[in-house]
Protein backbone atom coordinates (compact mmCIF):
# COMPACT_ATOMS: atom_id res chain seq x y z
CA UNK A 1 0.00 0.00 0.00
CA UNK A 2 2.76 2.37 0.90
CA UNK A 3 4.50 1.71 -2.40
CA UNK A 4 1.28 2.40 -4.26
CA UNK A 5 0.80 5.62 -2.36
CA UNK A 6 4.33 6.70 -3.21
CA UNK A 7 3.75 5.98 -6.86
CA UNK A 8 0.54 7.98 -6.86
CA UNK A 9 2.35 10.85 -5.16
CA UNK A 10 5.09 10.84 -7.79
CA UNK A 11 2.52 10.89 -10.54
CA UNK A 12 0.76 13.80 -8.91
CA UNK A 13 3.93 15.86 -8.92
CA UNK A 14 5.24 15.84 -12.46
CA UNK A 15 8.81 17.06 -12.83
CA UNK A 16 7.82 19.72 -15.30
CA UNK A 17 4.43 21.09 -16.20
CA UNK A 18 4.51 19.64 -19.72
CA UNK A 19 5.21 16.09 -18.64
CA UNK A 20 1.67 15.14 -17.70
CA UNK A 21 0.58 11.52 -17.91
CA UNK A 22 -1.05 12.11 -21.29
CA UNK A 23 2.18 13.55 -22.64
CA UNK A 24 4.18 10.61 -21.39
CA UNK A 25 1.68 8.21 -22.90
CA UNK A 26 1.89 10.00 -26.25
CA UNK A 27 5.66 9.83 -26.03
CA UNK A 28 5.53 6.08 -25.47
CA UNK A 29 3.31 5.69 -28.54
CA UNK A 30 5.78 7.67 -30.64
CA UNK A 31 8.90 5.95 -29.32
CA UNK A 32 7.43 2.43 -29.53
CA UNK A 33 9.27 0.29 -32.07
CA UNK A 34 6.03 -1.27 -33.20
CA UNK A 35 2.29 -0.95 -32.90
CA UNK A 36 -0.28 -3.74 -32.95
CA UNK A 37 -0.67 -5.01 -36.54
CA UNK A 38 -4.46 -4.75 -36.18
CA UNK A 39 -4.14 -1.12 -35.09
CA UNK A 40 -1.79 -0.36 -37.99
CA UNK A 41 -4.13 -2.18 -40.39
CA UNK A 42 -7.15 -0.23 -39.16
CA UNK A 43 -5.05 2.95 -39.45
CA UNK A 44 -4.16 2.18 -43.07
CA UNK A 45 -7.82 1.35 -43.81
CA UNK A 46 -8.97 4.70 -42.41
CA UNK A 47 -6.06 6.39 -44.12
CA UNK A 48 -7.39 5.12 -47.45
CA UNK A 49 -10.76 6.75 -46.67
CA UNK A 50 -8.80 9.97 -46.22
CA UNK A 51 -6.97 9.50 -49.54
CA UNK A 52 -10.21 8.80 -51.42
CA UNK A 53 -11.99 11.73 -49.75
CA UNK A 54 -9.25 14.35 -49.96
CA UNK A 55 -7.55 13.53 -53.26
CA UNK A 56 -10.05 11.18 -54.96
CA UNK A 57 -7.13 8.79 -55.29
CA UNK A 58 -6.28 5.35 -53.90
CA UNK A 59 -2.99 4.87 -52.02
CA UNK A 60 -0.42 3.58 -54.49
CA UNK A 61 3.30 3.83 -55.01
CA UNK A 62 4.57 2.58 -58.33
CA UNK A 63 2.86 4.95 -60.79
CA UNK A 64 5.06 7.68 -59.32
CA UNK A 65 8.18 5.55 -59.87
CA UNK A 66 7.09 4.89 -63.46
CA UNK A 67 6.57 8.62 -64.02
CA UNK A 68 9.99 9.41 -62.51
CA UNK A 69 11.66 6.92 -64.85
CA UNK A 70 9.64 8.21 -67.82
CA UNK A 71 10.59 11.85 -67.09
CA UNK A 72 14.27 10.85 -66.78
CA UNK A 73 14.15 8.96 -70.08
CA UNK A 74 12.36 11.85 -71.76
CA UNK A 75 15.14 14.17 -70.62
CA UNK A 76 18.01 11.88 -71.66
CA UNK A 77 16.51 10.51 -74.91
CA UNK A 78 14.08 13.15 -76.23
CA UNK A 79 13.41 11.10 -79.39
CA UNK A 80 11.75 8.45 -77.21
CA UNK A 81 8.66 10.63 -76.95
CA UNK A 82 8.00 10.36 -80.71
CA UNK A 83 8.76 6.66 -81.05
CA UNK A 84 7.10 5.33 -77.91
CA UNK A 85 3.32 5.32 -77.66
CA UNK A 86 3.68 5.32 -73.86
CA UNK A 87 3.93 9.10 -74.06
CA UNK A 88 0.70 9.28 -76.09
CA UNK A 89 -1.21 7.44 -73.38
CA UNK A 90 0.49 8.80 -70.27
CA UNK A 91 1.64 12.25 -69.24
CA UNK A 92 4.25 11.68 -66.53
CA UNK A 93 4.25 14.37 -63.86
CA UNK A 94 5.30 15.32 -60.35
CA UNK A 95 1.94 15.19 -58.62
CA UNK A 96 0.04 14.06 -55.53
CA UNK A 97 1.33 10.53 -55.86
CA UNK A 98 4.96 11.55 -56.32
CA UNK A 99 4.78 13.54 -53.09
CA UNK A 100 3.05 10.58 -51.43
CA UNK A 101 6.14 8.44 -52.14
CA UNK A 102 8.46 11.17 -50.82
CA UNK A 103 6.21 11.33 -47.75
CA UNK A 104 6.48 7.57 -47.17
CA UNK A 105 10.27 7.98 -47.08
CA UNK A 106 10.02 10.86 -44.59
CA UNK A 107 7.47 8.94 -42.50
CA UNK A 108 9.76 5.92 -42.31
CA UNK A 109 12.68 8.18 -41.39
CA UNK A 110 10.82 10.10 -38.67
CA UNK A 111 9.18 7.02 -37.18
CA UNK A 112 12.43 5.04 -37.03
CA UNK A 113 14.35 8.02 -35.58
CA UNK A 114 11.70 8.43 -32.86
CA UNK A 115 12.07 4.81 -31.77
CA UNK A 116 15.80 4.40 -32.48
CA UNK A 117 14.97 1.51 -34.81
CA UNK A 118 17.77 2.21 -37.26
CA UNK A 119 20.49 -0.38 -36.73
CA UNK A 120 19.49 -2.90 -39.40
CA UNK A 121 22.48 -4.58 -41.05
CA UNK A 122 22.87 -4.35 -44.84
CA UNK A 123 22.75 -8.15 -45.00
CA UNK A 124 19.65 -9.40 -43.12
CA UNK A 125 20.41 -12.36 -40.75
CA UNK A 126 18.10 -14.73 -42.64
CA UNK A 127 19.94 -13.93 -45.88
CA UNK A 128 23.33 -14.11 -44.13
CA UNK A 129 22.55 -17.57 -42.76
CA UNK A 130 21.66 -18.92 -46.22
CA UNK A 131 23.85 -16.97 -48.66
CA UNK A 132 26.76 -15.78 -46.54
CA UNK A 133 27.97 -12.36 -45.35
CA UNK A 134 28.75 -10.85 -48.80
CA UNK A 135 27.18 -7.42 -49.13
CA UNK A 136 27.76 -7.46 -52.90
CA UNK A 137 25.74 -10.66 -53.27
CA UNK A 138 22.86 -9.22 -51.24
CA UNK A 139 22.93 -5.91 -53.12
CA UNK A 140 22.93 -7.62 -56.54
CA UNK A 141 19.93 -9.73 -55.47
CA UNK A 142 18.18 -6.64 -54.07
CA UNK A 143 18.73 -4.82 -57.37
CA UNK A 144 17.37 -7.72 -59.43
CA UNK A 145 14.46 -8.10 -57.02
CA UNK A 146 13.68 -4.39 -57.42
CA UNK A 147 13.73 -4.64 -61.22
CA UNK A 148 11.36 -7.65 -61.21
CA UNK A 149 9.11 -5.98 -58.64
CA UNK A 150 8.57 -2.82 -60.66
CA UNK A 151 8.29 -4.60 -64.00
CA UNK A 152 5.59 -6.75 -62.41
CA UNK A 153 3.87 -3.81 -60.72
CA UNK A 154 3.71 -1.72 -63.87
CA UNK A 155 2.61 -4.62 -66.06
CA UNK A 156 -0.20 -5.36 -63.57
CA UNK A 157 -0.79 -1.62 -63.02
CA UNK A 158 -0.49 -1.79 -59.24
CA UNK A 159 1.52 -3.06 -56.29
CA UNK A 160 0.90 -4.25 -52.74
CA UNK A 161 -0.62 -0.85 -51.97
CA UNK A 162 -2.42 -0.13 -55.26
CA UNK A 163 -3.81 -3.62 -55.78
CA UNK A 164 -3.21 -5.45 -52.48
CA UNK A 165 -4.88 -2.85 -50.24
CA UNK A 166 -6.56 -0.08 -52.30
CA UNK A 167 -7.82 -2.46 -55.00
CA UNK A 168 -8.99 -5.32 -52.82
CA UNK A 169 -10.87 -2.97 -50.48
CA UNK A 170 -12.86 -1.77 -53.52
CA UNK A 171 -13.52 -5.47 -54.21
CA UNK A 172 -11.82 -5.16 -57.63
CA UNK A 173 -11.62 -8.61 -59.21
CA UNK A 174 -8.25 -7.74 -60.81
CA UNK A 175 -6.76 -6.85 -57.41
CA UNK A 176 -7.96 -10.03 -55.67
CA UNK A 177 -6.45 -12.13 -58.47
CA UNK A 178 -3.18 -10.14 -58.37
CA UNK A 179 -2.94 -10.46 -54.56
CA UNK A 180 -3.57 -14.22 -54.69
CA UNK A 181 -0.84 -14.61 -57.34
CA UNK A 182 1.77 -12.52 -55.49
CA UNK A 183 1.22 -14.45 -52.25
CA UNK A 184 1.42 -17.80 -54.06
CA UNK A 185 4.60 -16.90 -55.99
CA UNK A 186 6.13 -15.13 -52.98
CA UNK A 187 5.62 -18.22 -50.81
CA UNK A 188 6.95 -20.53 -53.55
CA UNK A 189 10.01 -18.31 -54.10
CA UNK A 190 10.75 -17.97 -50.37
CA UNK A 191 10.57 -21.74 -49.80
CA UNK A 192 12.74 -22.31 -52.92
CA UNK A 193 15.34 -19.86 -51.59
CA UNK A 194 15.34 -20.87 -47.92
CA UNK A 195 13.54 -24.21 -47.62
CA UNK A 196 11.68 -25.27 -44.50
CA UNK A 197 14.92 -24.81 -42.58
CA UNK A 198 14.71 -21.06 -43.25
CA UNK A 199 11.67 -20.82 -40.99
CA UNK A 200 13.95 -21.33 -37.99
CA UNK A 201 15.93 -18.22 -38.87
CA UNK A 202 13.14 -15.70 -39.33
Amino acid sequence: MRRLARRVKVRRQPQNPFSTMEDRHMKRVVTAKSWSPYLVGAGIGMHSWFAFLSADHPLGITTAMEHTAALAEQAVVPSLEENNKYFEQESPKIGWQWMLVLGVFIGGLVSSLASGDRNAPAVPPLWHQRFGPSKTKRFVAAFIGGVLLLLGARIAQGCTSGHGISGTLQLAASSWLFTAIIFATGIATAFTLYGREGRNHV
Partner: protein
Amino acid sequence: MFDPFWKLALGLFTGILFGVLLQKGRVAKYQVILGQFLLKDWTVVKIMGTAVVVGAIGIYALLPTEAVSLHLKPLDWGRIVTGGLLFGVGMAVLGYCPGTGVAACGEGRKDAMIGLVGMLTGAGLYVAAFPSIDNFLQRFGSAGKITLASVTGTSPWLWIGGLIALGLVGILMFGHERPKQVSAKRKRPHQVTG
Protein backbone atom coordinates in the same frame (compact mmCIF):
# COMPACT_ATOMS: atom_id res chain seq x y z
CA MET B 1 4.34 18.60 -65.17
CA PHE B 2 3.51 19.73 -61.63
CA ASP B 3 0.25 19.51 -59.70
CA PRO B 4 -0.89 22.67 -57.85
CA PHE B 5 0.85 23.31 -54.54
CA TRP B 6 -2.04 22.33 -52.25
CA LYS B 7 -2.24 18.98 -53.96
CA LEU B 8 1.50 18.38 -53.60
CA ALA B 9 1.33 19.31 -49.90
CA LEU B 10 -1.67 17.03 -49.39
CA GLY B 11 0.21 14.17 -51.07
CA LEU B 12 3.23 14.74 -48.84
CA PHE B 13 1.09 14.76 -45.69
CA THR B 14 -0.76 11.60 -46.75
CA GLY B 15 2.56 9.90 -47.53
CA ILE B 16 4.15 10.79 -44.19
CA LEU B 17 1.22 9.23 -42.30
CA PHE B 18 1.40 6.15 -44.54
CA GLY B 19 5.17 5.85 -43.99
CA VAL B 20 4.80 6.08 -40.20
CA LEU B 21 2.11 3.36 -40.27
CA LEU B 22 4.27 1.08 -42.43
CA GLN B 23 7.34 1.59 -40.21
CA LYS B 24 5.44 1.09 -36.93
CA GLY B 25 3.73 -1.92 -38.48
CA ARG B 26 7.22 -3.50 -38.95
CA VAL B 27 6.50 -4.31 -42.60
CA ALA B 28 9.49 -2.22 -43.72
CA LYS B 29 11.68 -5.10 -42.52
CA TYR B 30 13.15 -7.93 -44.57
CA GLN B 31 12.53 -10.61 -41.93
CA VAL B 32 8.86 -9.68 -41.57
CA ILE B 33 8.15 -9.93 -45.32
CA LEU B 34 10.13 -13.17 -45.66
CA GLY B 35 8.62 -14.42 -42.39
CA GLN B 36 5.20 -14.03 -43.98
CA PHE B 37 6.21 -15.86 -47.17
CA LEU B 38 7.74 -18.65 -45.05
CA LEU B 39 4.38 -18.78 -43.19
CA LYS B 40 6.03 -18.04 -39.86
CA ASP B 41 5.22 -14.39 -39.09
CA TRP B 42 1.65 -13.33 -39.98
CA THR B 43 2.14 -9.57 -39.54
CA VAL B 44 1.64 -8.78 -43.25
CA VAL B 45 -1.65 -10.69 -43.46
CA LYS B 46 -2.91 -9.12 -40.21
CA ILE B 47 -2.16 -5.60 -41.42
CA MET B 48 -3.44 -6.07 -44.97
CA GLY B 49 -6.52 -7.96 -43.80
CA THR B 50 -7.52 -5.31 -41.26
CA ALA B 51 -6.77 -2.49 -43.72
CA VAL B 52 -8.94 -4.09 -46.40
CA VAL B 53 -11.90 -4.74 -44.07
CA VAL B 54 -11.81 -1.27 -42.47
CA GLY B 55 -11.12 0.40 -45.82
CA ALA B 56 -13.92 -1.44 -47.60
CA ILE B 57 -16.52 -0.57 -44.94
CA GLY B 58 -15.69 3.14 -45.19
CA ILE B 59 -15.44 3.38 -48.96
CA TYR B 60 -18.66 1.46 -49.64
CA ALA B 61 -20.48 3.38 -46.87
CA LEU B 62 -19.35 6.68 -48.43
CA LEU B 63 -20.13 5.62 -51.99
CA PRO B 64 -23.88 6.56 -51.97
CA THR B 65 -23.01 10.06 -50.69
CA GLU B 66 -20.86 10.56 -53.81
CA ALA B 67 -18.05 11.87 -51.62
CA VAL B 68 -15.85 9.11 -53.04
CA SER B 69 -15.73 7.23 -56.32
CA LEU B 70 -14.29 3.83 -57.15
CA HIS B 71 -10.98 3.58 -59.02
CA LEU B 72 -10.95 0.03 -60.32
CA LYS B 73 -8.10 -1.49 -62.30
CA PRO B 74 -9.33 -3.53 -65.29
CA LEU B 75 -8.96 -7.29 -65.17
CA ASP B 76 -6.57 -7.57 -68.12
CA TRP B 77 -5.68 -11.24 -67.88
CA GLY B 78 -2.19 -11.02 -69.41
CA ARG B 79 -1.24 -8.01 -67.31
CA ILE B 80 -2.50 -9.31 -63.96
CA VAL B 81 -1.07 -12.83 -64.32
CA THR B 82 2.34 -11.86 -65.79
CA GLY B 83 2.70 -8.89 -63.45
CA GLY B 84 1.69 -10.91 -60.40
CA LEU B 85 4.22 -13.65 -61.15
CA LEU B 86 7.10 -11.19 -61.62
CA PHE B 87 6.03 -9.18 -58.58
CA GLY B 88 5.80 -12.18 -56.26
CA VAL B 89 9.28 -13.42 -57.21
CA GLY B 90 10.74 -9.92 -56.96
CA MET B 91 9.17 -9.28 -53.56
CA ALA B 92 10.54 -12.52 -52.08
CA VAL B 93 14.04 -11.81 -53.48
CA LEU B 94 14.13 -8.15 -52.44
CA GLY B 95 12.26 -8.64 -49.17
CA TYR B 96 10.31 -5.40 -49.50
CA CYS B 97 7.44 -4.27 -51.69
CA PRO B 98 7.49 -0.82 -53.32
CA GLY B 99 5.80 1.07 -50.46
CA THR B 100 7.53 -0.72 -47.61
CA GLY B 101 10.80 -0.52 -49.58
CA VAL B 102 10.59 3.27 -49.62
CA ALA B 103 9.75 3.29 -45.88
CA ALA B 104 12.71 0.92 -45.34
CA CYS B 105 14.98 3.44 -47.11
CA GLY B 106 13.74 5.98 -44.56
CA GLU B 107 14.65 3.48 -41.86
CA GLY B 108 18.22 3.51 -43.25
CA ARG B 109 18.24 0.03 -44.78
CA LYS B 110 20.98 -0.11 -47.41
CA ASP B 111 19.64 -3.18 -49.23
CA ALA B 112 16.30 -1.38 -49.63
CA MET B 113 18.11 1.62 -51.14
CA ILE B 114 19.78 -0.63 -53.72
CA GLY B 115 16.36 -2.22 -54.24
CA LEU B 116 14.89 1.24 -54.93
CA VAL B 117 17.55 1.83 -57.63
CA GLY B 118 16.49 -1.54 -59.08
CA MET B 119 12.82 -0.48 -58.91
CA LEU B 120 13.48 2.73 -60.85
CA THR B 121 15.47 0.70 -63.38
CA GLY B 122 12.56 -1.73 -63.72
CA ALA B 123 10.14 1.17 -64.21
CA GLY B 124 12.47 2.59 -66.86
CA LEU B 125 12.62 -0.76 -68.67
CA TYR B 126 8.82 -0.91 -68.63
CA VAL B 127 8.46 2.55 -70.14
CA ALA B 128 11.17 1.94 -72.78
CA ALA B 129 9.69 -1.42 -73.79
CA PHE B 130 6.08 -0.28 -73.41
CA PRO B 131 4.95 -0.65 -77.07
CA SER B 132 6.04 -4.29 -77.36
CA ILE B 133 4.93 -5.21 -73.79
CA ASP B 134 1.53 -3.63 -74.40
CA ASN B 135 1.07 -5.30 -77.81
CA PHE B 136 1.91 -8.69 -76.36
CA LEU B 137 -0.27 -8.41 -73.24
CA GLN B 138 -3.35 -7.15 -75.07
CA ARG B 139 -3.67 -10.53 -76.77
CA PHE B 140 -4.91 -12.15 -73.59
CA GLY B 141 -8.06 -10.08 -73.42
CA SER B 142 -9.72 -8.17 -70.62
CA ALA B 143 -12.73 -8.70 -68.40
CA GLY B 144 -12.94 -4.94 -67.79
CA LYS B 145 -13.33 -2.98 -64.59
CA ILE B 146 -15.30 -5.50 -62.57
CA THR B 147 -15.70 -6.07 -58.85
CA LEU B 148 -16.36 -9.35 -57.05
CA ALA B 149 -19.89 -8.04 -56.45
CA SER B 150 -20.63 -6.87 -60.00
CA VAL B 151 -19.30 -10.02 -61.66
CA THR B 152 -21.47 -12.25 -59.44
CA GLY B 153 -24.48 -9.93 -59.41
CA THR B 154 -24.46 -9.70 -55.61
CA SER B 155 -24.40 -6.86 -53.10
CA PRO B 156 -20.95 -5.60 -52.14
CA TRP B 157 -22.10 -5.77 -48.49
CA LEU B 158 -22.41 -9.53 -48.82
CA TRP B 159 -18.69 -9.65 -49.66
CA ILE B 160 -17.74 -7.12 -46.99
CA GLY B 161 -19.79 -9.08 -44.43
CA GLY B 162 -17.98 -12.22 -45.50
CA LEU B 163 -14.62 -10.49 -45.09
CA ILE B 164 -15.58 -9.23 -41.61
CA ALA B 165 -16.61 -12.77 -40.62
CA LEU B 166 -13.38 -14.21 -42.05
CA GLY B 167 -11.37 -11.61 -40.15
CA LEU B 168 -13.15 -12.33 -36.86
CA VAL B 169 -12.62 -16.07 -37.25
CA GLY B 170 -8.95 -15.42 -38.00
CA ILE B 171 -8.52 -13.22 -34.93
CA LEU B 172 -10.36 -15.67 -32.67
CA MET B 173 -8.29 -18.59 -33.92
CA PHE B 174 -4.84 -17.03 -34.35
CA GLY B 175 -5.07 -13.46 -33.01
CA HIS B 176 -3.76 -14.32 -29.56
CA GLU B 177 -0.55 -15.83 -30.92
CA ARG B 178 2.49 -13.69 -30.44
CA PRO B 179 4.86 -13.56 -33.41
CA LYS B 180 7.01 -16.64 -33.01
CA GLN B 181 10.23 -14.74 -33.59
CA VAL B 182 9.87 -13.14 -30.16
CA SER B 183 10.55 -16.48 -28.49
CA ALA B 184 13.23 -17.30 -31.07
CA LYS B 185 14.96 -14.04 -30.24
CA ARG B 186 14.88 -14.87 -26.54
CA LYS B 187 16.52 -18.20 -27.24
CA ARG B 188 19.31 -16.56 -29.22
CA PRO B 189 19.80 -13.18 -27.60
CA HIS B 190 23.10 -12.62 -29.43
CA GLN B 191 21.42 -12.69 -32.81
CA VAL B 192 20.88 -9.32 -34.42
CA THR B 193 17.50 -9.07 -36.07
CA GLY B 194 17.49 -7.77 -39.59
